């Protein structure tokens, strides 16, 4: 494994008390506890389960801070629509945008209209490519990485159309560099993100050389900055909202893609474990009649991201309500979208490729010998998946033993402590 994988978290070892909770939650079995907690970089998909589930906060997200904004002349924020759902129902998204401007952003870009446009482009793509089914949404970076790591034979099904945040960033950079006559490099485009995975997709995109976005700021950091300003703005009651803000249907709640384009034969699945279940069915060709799968790594979709303040059920409710209240059918030029599509404007720069799989050895015959050994060891282990050895399951432990990364005596059931009744 020579390839380097960027990850958006660091481990603060002093905080770890060895409770092993993270190991059980990791959906790709990337975590190990061997005297201290470590993770296997090639297996980690940045889903954020360890960050969310560790009671000691051992996993610290590495992400842009407000200080990173200072190096740019002109600042544009692309808020994830989830941001607006963090506040009460009486707070108009325009107020949130005004507050963002007060903390230093020059411009706020809307993502929902581009989502509508991309939804239409997707529909067009599905119509013109009837053979590749089901397509899987490229929206969630963790899901894309899950496919790269655990389902290498499904990479061809990842939707080749780029995600709204990237297209918006590309577009706004062009527009404002022309308008203000400054170098695009001096424009800082920041995504206000509900999850750490987006930050990884900016630092090390799976589908292009470099991202159009310059950084990502967690919603929870922004929340604490703008909340007092919002309170202030609400007090100035006589101030009228500029009614310039409309949401498209492409508003980041569950099922938004199918709703925005009216795609009926579409599955929505949230949570990495659930997504794995669906992907297993695709591998065995069980899902023959589905056109599109919208898979999101966080439960309940992006509202369940690790950086959200509000509980996902409430913000989902807020989100639906806000969209009903302020949502608008925004007409876009369908002809132009198709022209753009044909010119390749929306496409990913290159197809997503599988990550090198974690086989025992590039030589199949050596690999088979090791696999047999793994099965043999596994058959003698207690199969209780207790995790005390530091691996999530007995099966993974057997594999670690064969790789030489663990000692069989690490198994609690063969240790002297177990015999003496200490466990």
């Amino acid at each position: 494994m020579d390839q380097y994988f960027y990850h958006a978290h660091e481990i603060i070892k002093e905080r770890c008390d060895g409770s092993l909770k993270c190991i059980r939650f990791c959906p790709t079995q990337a975590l190990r506890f061997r005297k201290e907690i470590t993770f296997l970089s090639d297996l980690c998909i940045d889903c954020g389960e360890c960050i969310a589930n560790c009671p000691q906060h051992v996993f610290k997200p590495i992400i842009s801070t407000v200080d990173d904004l200072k190096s740019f002349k002109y600042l544009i924020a692309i808020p994830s629509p989830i941001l607006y759902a963090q506040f009460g129902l009486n707070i108009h998204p325009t107020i949130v945008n005004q507050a963002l401007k007060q903390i230093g952003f020059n411009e706020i870009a809307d993502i929902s209209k581009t989502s509508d446009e991309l939804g239409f482009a997707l529909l067009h793509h599905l119509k013109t490519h009837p053979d590749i089914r089901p397509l899987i949404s490229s929206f969630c970076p963790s899901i894309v990485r899950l496919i790269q790591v655990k389902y290498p034979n499904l990479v061809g099904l990842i939707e080749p159309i780029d995600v709204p945040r990237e297209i918006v960033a590309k577009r706004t950079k062009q527009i404002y560099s022309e308008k203000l006559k400054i170098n695009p490099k001096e424009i800082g485009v920041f995504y206000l993100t509900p999850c750490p995975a987006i930050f990884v997709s900016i630092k090390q995109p799976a589908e292009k050389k470099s991202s159009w976005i310059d950084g990502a700021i967690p919603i929870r950091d922004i929340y604490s900055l703008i909340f007092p300003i919002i309170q202030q703005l609400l007090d100035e009651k006589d101030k009228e909202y500029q009614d310039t803000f409309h949401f498209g249907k492409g508003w980041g709640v569950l099922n938004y893609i199918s709703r925005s384009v009216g795609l009926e034969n579409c599955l929505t699945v949230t949570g990495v474990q659930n997504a794995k279940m669906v992907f297993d069915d695709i591998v065995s060709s069980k899902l023959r009649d589905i056109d599109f799968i919208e898979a999101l790594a966080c439960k309940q979709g992006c509202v369940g991201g690790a950086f959200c303040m509000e509980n996902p059920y409430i913000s989902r409710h807020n989100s639906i309500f806000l969209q009903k209240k302020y949502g608008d059918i925004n007409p876009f030029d369908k002809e132009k979208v198709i022209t753009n599509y044909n010119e390749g404007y929306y496409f990913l720069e290159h197809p997503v490729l599988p990550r090198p799989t974690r086989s025992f050895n590039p030589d199949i015959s050596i690999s088979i010998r090791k696999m047999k050994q793994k099965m043999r060891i596994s058959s003698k282990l207690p199969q209780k998946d207790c995790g005390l050895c530091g691996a999530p399951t007995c099966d993974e432990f057997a594999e670690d033993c064969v790789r030489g990364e663990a000692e069989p005596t690490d198994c609690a059931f063969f240790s002297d402590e177990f015999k003496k009744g200490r466990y």
Partner: protein
Amino acid sequence: MAEEFRLNLNIKKIKEVLKADVVQGKKLLSTKINGVYASDLVSDVLAYSKSGSVLLTGLCTKQVVISAYLSLFKAIIFIRGKKPNKEILEFAEEKNMIILLTENDMFEACVKIANADSNSISNFVKLIESVEKKNTIIRKFHIDGQDFSNSGLLSTQIKSILQNIGYDPYLIKRVSISAYEGEMNVVMHAKEANLILNANEKEIQIIIDDRGKGISDIELAMQKGYSTATEDQRVLGFGSGMGLPNIKKNSDELKISSEVGAGTKVEMKFYVIQE
């Protein structure tokens, strides 16, 4: 220091040629062994050894005994007069392992065991060849007919085994589609079946042997769209008549034999092309 060969010996013979003391498992001396593995490196024992062997080692720790147990060794011979402690003996007793002690060093012990078998040199060559041939993962699974709730579980398991070994992703996809179709055929039409997976560096083979009503006209069953699925099964989304044709499309070799009223045997092969 790791070499493996296969011999037609039992523990008793080894005890005689090495003039070894049996300190554990005196009743088990007639146990036949598959081979001898000589190593002081525990990780090598775990990574390369074969089941049913004897471990020859100068490392006298409990860890070695546990590793040997996990690797399905039948006996351990401690060389150069090393003495195991009580803990090791207790563990061996509990797990029915035999422990021998000899004064010989590693090389002497290996040579003496090799010479103990009358045709050892020619046997050695033959056995090495057969070991090469037998470098195959064999897994047996059981499928219950009408068990719709667990359908697809087996093909997922097979997929993860093959992925772990590191076969080409597109080969794995073909195998898992075929395994799934085969599995579903059993679930829909048969009472029960055994699925055997054989995987080596040249080919992957899946054999599904079921007990059920059998197929009267195999040629007809191979046609696209032909299905004998019941109305209930069609409601569940099965029985599109694509099962066998799909296996044929994805496999490199397909052999179906069937006896009406007894059962059907489906054998499929997939070639492994290594760069």
